[in-house]
C-alpha cells in the first residue's frame, strides 16, 4: 500500500503540487488522471524519489520514503518497478541485459537463476525468444513490454507506469493495459498509472484520482465517473466523444 500525506512541491515560486493526500491499495490499478500540466508526472516523480517533495511524505507500507536515509530508500526501491513513457530501455543493452539489469545491481543471485527469472518474465509479457534483440529492433509495444518485464523482474511490490499508452495504436494500447491489469492482480502489486487516456481509465482503472492545477479534485471508481458533479472533472472526462455518448446512454 502507498500513502501520500500532504504532498506539496514547488519549483522556485511556482507551486506545482498543493497538498495531495491519497492511498493506493495493492492488487488494484490506481490511476492518476488529469490534463497536461496539472502535476501528475511531478507527483509520480515525488513518489519514486526522482523529486523530493517540498512538504509531505510518501509511505510504502508504512515506511516513510521521502524522509528516509539513502540506505532505507534503496531498500524500498528494491520493491519499486517503473515503466517510463518511452520505456527508457538502455540502448546499448540487449532485451535480456535490460531485463536482467535490476537483478544485477540489486541482488547477488547466480547468473543462471537470474536468467531463469528473466526468461520467466519475458514469457509472461509475451516476448519469448527475444533475449538477444536490441531495443532499436523492437516496436513501440514490444519496448513497453520489455519495460514492464524489467519493472517486475525483481518481484516488485509497487509498479509505476507513466503514460503507458503514449505513442501506441489502440489495439496495442489495450494489450498493454490488459497486461498491466493482469500483472497487478496476479502478483498483488500496488500499481499506479499516470494517464490521460480515458479508454484506459474505463478499461483497467480500479481507483481513479483526478488532478487539476496541483490539487486532487475527485477520486473514486470507474463506475462512479459518470455520476461525478465536479465541473473540472466532467470537462476533462466528457471532452471525449465516446464518454459523452456513454453518458447519454446511461441517462
Amino acid at each position, binding site marked *: 500500500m502507498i500513502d501520500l500525506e500532504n504532498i506539496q512541491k514547488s519549483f522556485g515560486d511556482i507551486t506545482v503540487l498543493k497538498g495531495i493526500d491519497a492511498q493506493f491499495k495493492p492488487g488494484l490499478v490506481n490511476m492518476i488522471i488529469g490534463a497536461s500540466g496539472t502535476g501528475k508526472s511531478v507527483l509520480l516523480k515525488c513518489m519514486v524519489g526522482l523529486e523530493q517533495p517540498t512538504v509531505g511524505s510518501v509511505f510504502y507500507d508504512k515506511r516513510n520514503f521521502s524522509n528516509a536515509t539513502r540506505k532505507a530508500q534503496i531498500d524500498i526501491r*528494491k520493491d519499486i518497478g517503473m515503466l*517510463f513513457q518511452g520505456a527508457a530501455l538502455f*540502448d546499448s543493452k540487449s532485451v535480456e541485459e535490460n531485463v536482467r539489469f535490476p537483478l544485477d545491481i540489486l541482488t547477488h543471485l547466480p547468473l543462471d537463476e537470474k536468467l531463469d527469472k528473466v526468461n520467466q518474465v519475458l514469457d509472461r509479457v509475451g516476448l519469448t525468444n527475444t533475449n538477444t534483440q536490441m531495443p532499436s529492433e523492437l516496436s513501440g509495444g514490444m519496448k513497453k513490454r520489455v519495460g514492464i518485464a524489467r519493472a517486475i523482474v525483481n518481484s516488485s511490490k509497487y509498479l509505476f507506469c507513466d503514460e503507458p499508452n503514449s505513442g501506441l495504436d489502440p489495439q496495442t494500447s489495450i494489450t498493454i493495459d490488459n497486461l498491466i491489469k493482469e500483472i497487478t492482480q496476479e502478483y498483488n502489486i500496488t500499481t499506479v498509472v499516470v494517464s490521460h487516456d480515458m479508454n484506459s481509465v474505463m478499461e483497467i482503472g480500479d481507483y481513479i484520482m483526478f488532478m487539476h492545477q496541483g490539487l486532487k479534485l475527485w477520486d473514486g471508481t470507474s463506475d462512479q465517473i459518470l455520476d461525478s458533479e465536479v465541473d473540472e472533472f466532467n470537462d476533462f472526462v466528457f471532452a471525449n466523444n465516446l464518454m459523452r455518448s456513454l453518458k447519454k446512454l446511461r441517462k
Partner: protein
Amino acid sequence: MQSIGKYFIFLGSLLKNRESFKTYFKLFIDESIKVGTNSIFLIATVSIFMGAVTTIQTAYNLVNPLIPKYVVALVVRDMVLLELSPTIIAIIFAGKVGSNIAGELGTMRITEQIDALEVMGLNSSSYLVLPKVLATIFMFPALVVTSAFLSIYGGYLAASFTGVISPTEYTQGIRFQLNEFMIIFAMIKAITFAFLVSTISSFMGYYTKGGALEVGQASTSAVTNSVIAILLADYLLAQLLAQYLISF
C-alpha cells in the same frame, strides 16, 4: 559562476554512494575500449602527418649553415613532446570522445534512461560518469605516448622520403640531449586534459534538458568548453612547470 559551482557539485557526486568495485571494473573496461581503442586510428593518422609536416616545415625554415641538420629532429621532438602530442591530440580527442560522451549522456537523459537508473537506486552520475572519467584518465596518456612515438616516426618517414634531412641525422637529433622531464610534463598534461575533457563533456551531457536539438547543443558545448579548458590549463601548466625543464 553558477555553472562552475554546479560542475564542482557534480564532481563531488561522482564519489558519493558508489557501486561495487566489480560493477565499475566491467564498465571501466568497456569505456576504455570505447575511449581508447576506438580513437587509435584517428590519433595515429593525425600524429604521423603532424610529425611529417613539422619536420618538413622546420627543415625548410632552419636553413642557416651554422645550425647542424640534426637540430631539425631535436626541434620536432621537443615540439611533439611538449605541445603537439599532449595539447593538439587533446583538442582532437575532445572533438571525438567529448562530443560522444555528451551525446550519449544527453540522449540517456532525454529518453529517461538516467531516471530509470535513479529509480533502481543507483547514483546515476557515479555509475555512468566515474568509469568514463577513469577510463579517459587511464587511456589518454597511453594515446599521447602512442601519438608522440608516431609523430616522431612520421617525421622520420618524411625525412627519408623528401631528403630534407638524412635518417641518420634525424635519429641523432631525436637522441640528442633529451630532457626526461619533458615526458613527465607531457604525462601531467595528458592526465589533466583527460580529466577536463571527460568531466566537462559528462557534465554537459548529464544536465541536458529538452530534446534532440539540446543533445546536439550539449555536444557542441562539450567540445567548445573542453577546448577552452584545455588551452587554459595548457597555459597554466606551462607557467607552473616550464621552469623545471631548465632545472631538471
